[in-house]
């Protein structure tokens, strides 16, 4: 049923894109990475939801979502959005900052309104609006929670994401906030934002360290692997895990009071919706919208989990 709906949706979008649209329609291109990872799957879902909602509310707005498999692919997408669709505004989540800066500048040179999401460009003067999660706050909030549960002499291990600026920001912020607490960080390893790697890296940590009190997994996909490894070793009662992002399974667990994963730290996949809202507002609002919108990374606890729970999202 839902598959059919998506197929129909795709057909409708491409039909719309092909057809000549009335002159006063405002076309907004949305260029995002393809759904190749849980978080991006969630982001794609939120983009599609926002498109439905915004187009229903504003008949003169036409949002065109395109997804790319890599930086080069995304650069081509941007060219198509300009030449084929002649967009008046662009919402872009760049695959990588460096290689996409010039392609986005080329879009800006056509006079389009530019909204950049999450990963910034190397030249911020190109963008009119910047919407982002907060990696630093994510790291700090995770550390702050660790501090409420642990004290001097306790041990934690860290599973990091993929070596990127984003990961380094989170990690450095976390380590900064942990300084001087006397909590030992035994080691950190990359688990590539992937549950299989999370499982294997955690198995190895468990084989290596007999005493672990807390795990910072930084990402909910990794968290799922970590939880299985801990259960396999039968050490659920010794430690707890702090993940990140806001995957629905994890948020549900927090809601239900899972002692192994008591909290989560938000890094909202819905930020793309915020960016699309702000961009549409540029055309329909009578107030200014330019500037930076840095979304919070609050701690998701049993008390507030419900407001971060999207059961229909794939993530």
């Amino acid at each position, binding site marked *: 049923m839902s598959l059919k709906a998506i197929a129909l949706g795709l057909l409708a979008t491409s039909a719309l894109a092909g057809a000549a649209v009335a002159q006063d329609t405002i076309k907004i291109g949305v260029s995002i990475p393809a759904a190749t990872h849980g978080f991006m799957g969630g982001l794609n879902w939120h983009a599609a939801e926002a498109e439905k909602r915004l187009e229903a509310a504003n008949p003169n707005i036409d949002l065109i979502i395109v997804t790319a498999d890599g930086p080069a692919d995304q650069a081509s997408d941007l060219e198509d959005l300009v030449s084929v669709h002649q967009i008046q505004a662009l919402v872009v989540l760049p695959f990588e900052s460096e290689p996409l800066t010039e392609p986005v500048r080329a879009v800006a040179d056509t006079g389009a309104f530019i909204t950049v999401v999450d990963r910034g460009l190397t030249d911020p003067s190109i963008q009119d609006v910047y919407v982002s999660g907060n990696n630093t706050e994510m790291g700090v909030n995770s550390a702050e929670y660790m501090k409420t549960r642990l004290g001097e002499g306790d041990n934690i291990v860290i599973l990091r994401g993929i070596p990127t600026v984003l990961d380094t920001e989170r990690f450095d912020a976390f380590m900064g906030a942990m300084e001087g607490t006397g909590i030992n960080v035994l080691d950190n390893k990359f688990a590539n934002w992937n549950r*299989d790697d999370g499982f294997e890296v955690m198995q190895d940590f468990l084989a290596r360290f007999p005493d672990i009190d807390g795990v910072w997994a930084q990402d909910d996909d990794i968290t799922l692997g970590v939880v299985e490894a801990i259960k396999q070793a039968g050490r659920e009662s010794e430690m707890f895990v702090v993940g990140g992002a806001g995957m629905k399974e994890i948020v549900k667990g927090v809601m239900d009071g899972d002692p192994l994963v008591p909290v989560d730290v938000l890094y909202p996949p819905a930020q793309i919706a915020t960016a699309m809202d702000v961009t549409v507002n540029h055309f329909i609002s009578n107030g200014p919208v330019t500037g930076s919108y840095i979304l919070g990374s609050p701690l998701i606890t049993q008390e507030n989990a419900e407001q971060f729970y999207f059961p229909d999202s794939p993530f």
Partner: protein
Amino acid sequence: MSVAAHETGKPSKGFRIDLKTAGPLVALIVLCILGYLLNPAFLNEGNITNILTRSAFIGIIAVGATFVITAGGIDLSVGSMAAFIAGVMIIIMNSAVDTFGVSIWTVVLGCGSSLILGIGAGFINGFLNTKAKIEAFIVTLGTMGIYRSLVTYFADGGTLSLNNGARDIYRPVYYESFLRIPIPVWVFIAVAIIGWVLMNRTAFGRYCMAIGSNEHVARYSAIKVDRVKTATYILQGLCVSLATIIYVPRLGSASSATGVLWELEAIAAVIIGGTMLKGGFGRIGGTVIGALILTSIGNILNLTEIISNYLNGAVQGVIIVAAVYLQRGSLRTGRKKSAE
């Protein structure tokens, strides 16, 4: 060239095979000593069990890949195929729970569908390669993209998760042990033994080597080349399906991130083990050791703090190249001796 290697390998089976086995085995032993020196926890029973269990996925797939590569083909689709099969298995089991309820039959149905999908996917690769005459590299590059997209589509860009009840029944397939050896390792052992027998003691194995050495000669020798080549891809699909059957109960989920780069790991395991990439000569025992080497590298890197996290890929690359060099070195001395 590969014909020569094949022929010199044949007559003096006794000690020549020992020489050839030595390369990868030496590499594995050196790696184990290194692992122990870096962290004595490496040789803990628990850690060894972890390494063996993890090797099972890549190892089982690599046994299938050994046949494909020996017969002169290549299969790039195995990682995506594993993700696709895992995804469809989960969908089938979840809907079976709705009709049959949570029972052992749900899991049996899932495993059965996995076998059918694996065989079917292998047949498609083999058929397109032999009958439609499309290069194996291109066929499997195509199916690789198709399977990866399909699992992303089925999962709606997110993750397919197995029903919790079905998961509880299925879980032991990965987590339980028999005679203190985990079930996945038993499956790996069984697949390796059957693979070894097929490769070294049956006409099918000899045909694979003959086709990989020289397809035209094999054809003139009345070997049914197309049929044998298709069979290697079907065997590969079967191996992927078996690997998936023991993979799904581990995390009970499949997503577009499942099985990424497994094809390269499987090919690496095959080559480290001494099978020739251009075909004509296959070694199942070497493939098993190759899979163990690959898994051990990752494990050792996780057990030490000495090497920067950023250099993990470099260390893996160096060890893979070194292992293959050792292997080639022993081949060369073996050939020199036979010339003398």
